[in-house]
């Protein structure tokens, strides 16, 4: 024990860097992801401060006299067929789309983490059951089942969040399960077991913190899926009921007017495309940054 404290390099001279620091550096290097993230933040701000940047509420038919008017200085995106300012409708549509996306993603993560952790840690029978449930979900396409459910119970805001979460957890669950399966054979888990730590403690303190990357990735990638689901259902008329502004619904209406009043089709289509794209690029970038081994999968 004499000369051990004087080992070369024994005194640290730099600040500590957690594993997340390197993920952040990789993320910033990815231009598409940074742009996606910036657009997403802008959209979120727009949705949050919607009343401040629009001149009338989205459901107010204040401009009946100008119904179907083309974009102008007064109405940036024109006026819709029922005399509502189309810019307000699009901005408030972001509220609906983003809030559904985020709530459904939270829901997915809340179901996916515990199931994935249990299946990954215990394997055996629990894993078999979870995997069979997932198999069922993977032969039933979410959109069709959602349409059926939506049609049967009449759509609605919370129903869509429920349905999107119901199908969104599978991805999170698989990601968490794979991570925990890989990590539970690691020696640090064996060491914790040798300490007499309970399975609950090991899952909570070791395995889930080491699964943050897949959890974040699963969360972010569940958002665009839920937004697409909402738009698709609303487009088919079984989603969010009018007059709540939903882009899918507006695209459906826009379709009947597109030959003469192009703005009714173009703006919601672009809004949806941009939002979903931005979120996906952001999510893909996060995934590549957090787990370089998953790249492109």
């Amino acid at each position: 024990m004499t000369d051990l404290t004087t080992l070369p390099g024994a005194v640290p001279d730099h600040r500590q860097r957690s594993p997340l620091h390197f993920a952040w550096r990789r993320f910033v290097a990815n231009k598409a992801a940074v742009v996606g993230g910036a657009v997403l933040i802008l959209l979120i701000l727009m949705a949050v401060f919607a009343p401040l940047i629009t001149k009338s509420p989205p459901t107010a038919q204040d401009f009946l006299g100008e119904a179907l008017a083309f974009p102008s200085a007064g109405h940036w995106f024109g006026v819709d067929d029922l005399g509502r300012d189309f810019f307000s409708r699009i901005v408030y549509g972001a509220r609906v789309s983003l809030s559904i996306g985020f709530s459904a993603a939270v829901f997915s993560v809340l179901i996916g983490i515990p199931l994935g952790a249990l299946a990954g840690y215990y394997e055996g029978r629990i894993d078999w059951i979870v995997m069979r449930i997932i198999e069922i979900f993977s032969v039933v396409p979410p959109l069709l089942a959602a349409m059926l459910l939506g049609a049967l119970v009449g759509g609605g805001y919370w129903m869509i969040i429920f349905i999107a979460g119901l199908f969104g957890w599978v991805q999170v669950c698989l990601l968490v399960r794979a991570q925990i399966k890989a990590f539970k054979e690691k020696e640090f888990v064996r060491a914790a077991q040798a300490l007499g730590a309970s399975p609950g403690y090991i899952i909570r303190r070791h395995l889930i913190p080491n699964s943050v990357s897949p959890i974040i990735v699963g969360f972010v990638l569940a958002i665009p899926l839920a937004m697409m689901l909402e738009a698709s259902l609303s487009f088919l008329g079984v989603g969010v009921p009018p007059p709540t502004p939903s882009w899918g619904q507006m695209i459906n209406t826009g379709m009947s007017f597109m030959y003469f009043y192009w703005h009714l089709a173009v703006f919601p289509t672009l809004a949806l495309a941009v939002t979903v794209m931005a979120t996906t690029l952001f999510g893909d970038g996060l995934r590549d940054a957090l787990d370089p081994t998953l790249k492109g999968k």
Partner: protein
Amino acid sequence: MTAALELRGLCKSYPLRDPNGWLPRYRELRVVRDVDLTVESNSIVGLVGESGSGKTTTGMMALRLTEPTAGRILVGGQDITRMEAAALKPFRAKMQVVFQDSYSALDPMFTLAQIVAEPLHVHGRGSAREQTETALDWLERVGLHRSYGSRYPHELSGGQRQRVAIARALVLRPDVLIADEPTSALDVSVKAQIINLLQDLQAEMGLSILFISHDLSVVRSLTDKVAVMFNGRIVEEAATEDIFIRPQHPYTRSLLDAIPVLNPRDRRDRVFRSREDLEADIPRLSAVATGLPPAPTPRLIPHGPGHRYEALVQ
């Protein structure tokens, strides 16, 4: 005085599923067979053998990280083989482990202080502040500066990580340490430092160590007693010097012959034997591998004080 750790007739077998059958059919794969081993208090016992000989499985069974199929494990004279998690917990504090791969042995999301304090936390020893204080003391004791406490494992070298792993294993002041090839992933110079550290700590704390390794030179310099494992069985056991000078079992002999020697004149009588050749010579080994019913059982027969080796008893 009772032994720190005793293994009595320990066996481990795994069911092997035949993949091409219509119905599941299982064969038994016997990884560890009838292992008897005693680690006396305040001593270092080496468990040597090639990869796949079952030495790591034996260590994991001693820790109750792998459940034995048969046999008993005694820690300080107490049988822990069938203990439930809650009853076992105090015994877990008496027996700790250091692994081979220091990188995966430390949780990458924990700082070093958290890693070393974790055993204290799990066993509820002291307040959070005292736990951190003790952890930092231990980092110092294994040769790392206190300020390393806020670092993460990936910032360390392999030798430094192994020091942290040792600190974590010893912070509860256990009686027994199971060291599973703790030096085989390290450079030669670092290896010597870690061996010295283990030796110092063993002497200071009166620790009993089960040192699992395939590195015979390390084993010779460190241990008091050596057990040689081959194909899941202990084939020879003796005091360290005794076994290195007078090996009895053919496998032990070929293992010793494989140690590189510096003086060419010493090489003269070394024999390198193929595995087939070896197996033909070793009692009943081929019969076990093919699943034939046992012929006369090989037994460990005594050969001088504390020296036993496996042979056929007619």
